[in-house]
Structure formats: structure tokens, C-alpha cells
């Protein structure tokens, strides 16, 4: 820290040709919500839970489909086509904020390229038989 402060005192202004403000600390050069064209909420009515699982629809296999998809949309579909993944896993895998992934997945749901499983409805606990299965599953690990 203090080293850094000293250096900046010695070298006022940026060194020509060296954009040292574009380091990891500065974050991605493309601001995350640029990928959603500024949208912060998804087209789908329900806010997608972190553990909602994104499952590809048969249409996702169809070549020559929607040409308007961004590379991030395509990557989400590709990742899920290998193995359906939760919103949280997609966000971690793509290194994108959860909010951005929600918007992008919302677009794909609109396009009927994927659907999303709804986890346990909000404000409800899973039923007793599932809880028993979880206990058995944990013990068997």
C-alpha cells in the first residue's frame, strides 16, 4: 500500500503506453451489465433463485437458431447442455455477477432455449420425505 502511494508520488500521471489502471483491481474492461444491455432484471416474472437449475430445451440443439444471442448466452446454453447447472454455478463458471446471469438466463427462457426448475417455493420448507432422503444421503456419503 505505502509502496504504491510512494510510487504514485514519484510518478505523477500514467506512464505512457502502460495502462496500469486496467489491472484486476479495476475489474473487467467491459462492465458486467453492458452484457445485459443495461437491464438489471430478467424478463421472466420470477426472480431466479441461486439454486434454480437451468435445463436446455430441445430447441437449443437446433443449428441456425437465433443469431441475436451474445457469446455469453451461447456459453450458458453450452454449459447447461453438458450438464444442467444452477444459476450460482453458472455465475461462478462464467465469472459473471449473479444478477447478470439472471438476466441472460431470463432471455434464454423467453427464447425457449432453456427452462428453469423452480426450487422449493419461497417461504416453504421441502416436505418431510425429502428431508429424510437428505439425512440418509448425508449419512451415506
Amino acid at each position, binding site marked *: 500500500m505505502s509502496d504504491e502511494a510512494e510510487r504514485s508520488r514519484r510518478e505523477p500521471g500514467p506512464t505512457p503506453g502502460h495502462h496500469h489502471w486496467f489491472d484486476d483491481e479495476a475489474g473487467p474492461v467491459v462492465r458486467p451489465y453492458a452484457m445485459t444491455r443495461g437491464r*438489471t432484471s430478467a424478463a421472466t416474472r420470477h426472480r431466479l433463485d*441461486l439454486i434454480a437449475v437451468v435445463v*436446455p430445451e430441445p430447441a437449443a440443439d437446433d443449428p441456425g437458431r437465433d443469431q441475436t444471442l451474445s457469446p455469453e448466452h451461447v456459453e450458458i446454453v453450452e454449459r447447461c447442455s453438458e450438464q444442467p447447472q*444452477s444459476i*450460482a454455478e453458472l455465475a461462478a463458471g462464467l465469472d459473471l*455477477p449473479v444478477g447478470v446471469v439472471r438476466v441472460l438466463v431470463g432471455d434464454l427462457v423467453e427464447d425457449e432455449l432453456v427452462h428453469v426448475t423452480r426450487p422449493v417455493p419461497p417461504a416453504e420448507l421441502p416436505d418431510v420425505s425429502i*428431508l429424510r432422503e437428505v439425512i440418509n444421503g448425508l449419512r451415506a456419503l
Partner: protein
Amino acid sequence: MAFGRSSRTKPFVEPVTLKILVAGGFGVGKTTLVGAVSEIRPLRTEEVLTEAGRPVDDLHGVETKTTTTVAMDFGRITLREDLVLYLFGTPGQDRFWFLWDELAQGALGAIVLADTRRLEDSFAAIDYFERRGIPFTVAVNCFEGAQRFPAESVRGALDLDPEVELLMCDARDRESVKNVLVAVVQHALVLADRSPAAVTT
């Protein structure tokens, strides 16, 4: 747009997904605990908070920033092909309480990881789960070098309800963490059996 892989032989299994939260003060071992049982290296997911629509008052101390990033570490346990449990470490900083509401929604239970040297760090989490009726278990992470206290005195210091379980654990040890998880789900089971409506308030 071609997404490759057009010959899929069987439809995907759509798993039931559940989540358990892991709360506790900064540095108490939440990510270690998640890592001890997760089948994947704990992943990090981030939420960028912007001024738009966010309670900016909560960003006390970082007023000069227009965006800030909150990280949540999580892991996954596939119990069966169709039953997957996620563990989410909650953001440790108090100013991100509002993110907890989202995490807590639909959570089947929670672990409050405590360190006897800094018990006060777990008060906020205990209070949060009590108020929302989320089943939780307190796990005291037995750090090397920390003085061991009898469970009863820790219970007293935390002012726990009699039905809340308190366990000693080693957040690095898989079996130990498994026991804690089983205790959480058992507690959830007891509450769910008793009255399905009572836990939703």
C-alpha cells in the same frame, strides 16, 4: 446458432435442489467447512451492487464507491442424481444483511459456525435465523489453541433456545461437518413434522 452436441440419448435428470446456509463471523472457517464436504472446490459467486435499486445506506464506509462486490462461496453435494444439496457461505460483513434475505429464501436450514474466542460474532446470525424461523444448528469450530469450553457454558453465553442443537466440530474434517449437516436437517425435520405452517412466518 449451433450449440454442438445434437445427439443426446437420454433426457436430463432435473434434480431437486436444496440449500443450507453457513453463517458466522469473518474468518471463522465458513469456506473451510463448505470445502470439507463439497464435491467441488468451493466456488465463488459474486453480486455487483450498484446504486440503482440498492439500499445504499447499507454501504456505510464505502460511500465513495458507486459499485461494490459481495462474494459468496458455495459448494455442492450430490446426494443422488436427482437430489442436490448446495451449501452457501453467507457474506460475513454486517452491511450485506439484505443479501441474506435472498439466500435464506427457501433454505432448508442453516449452520451458525462459532469461535469461542469471538462468540459475539455469531450473535447477529443466531438472531437472524431465530427471527425468521429458519432451523439452525450452532457448530463451535474447535480451533487449535483455543480454549475448550463445556457446551453448556457456550449455550448459556449464546442464550440458545433449548431445542437448538450445539455441536463441537472441526470445520476441516469431513465426518465432523457431515454430523453437523445431519443435525441441521434433523432439526428441520422436527420443525416440519410439528407444524408445516409455523416455520413459514
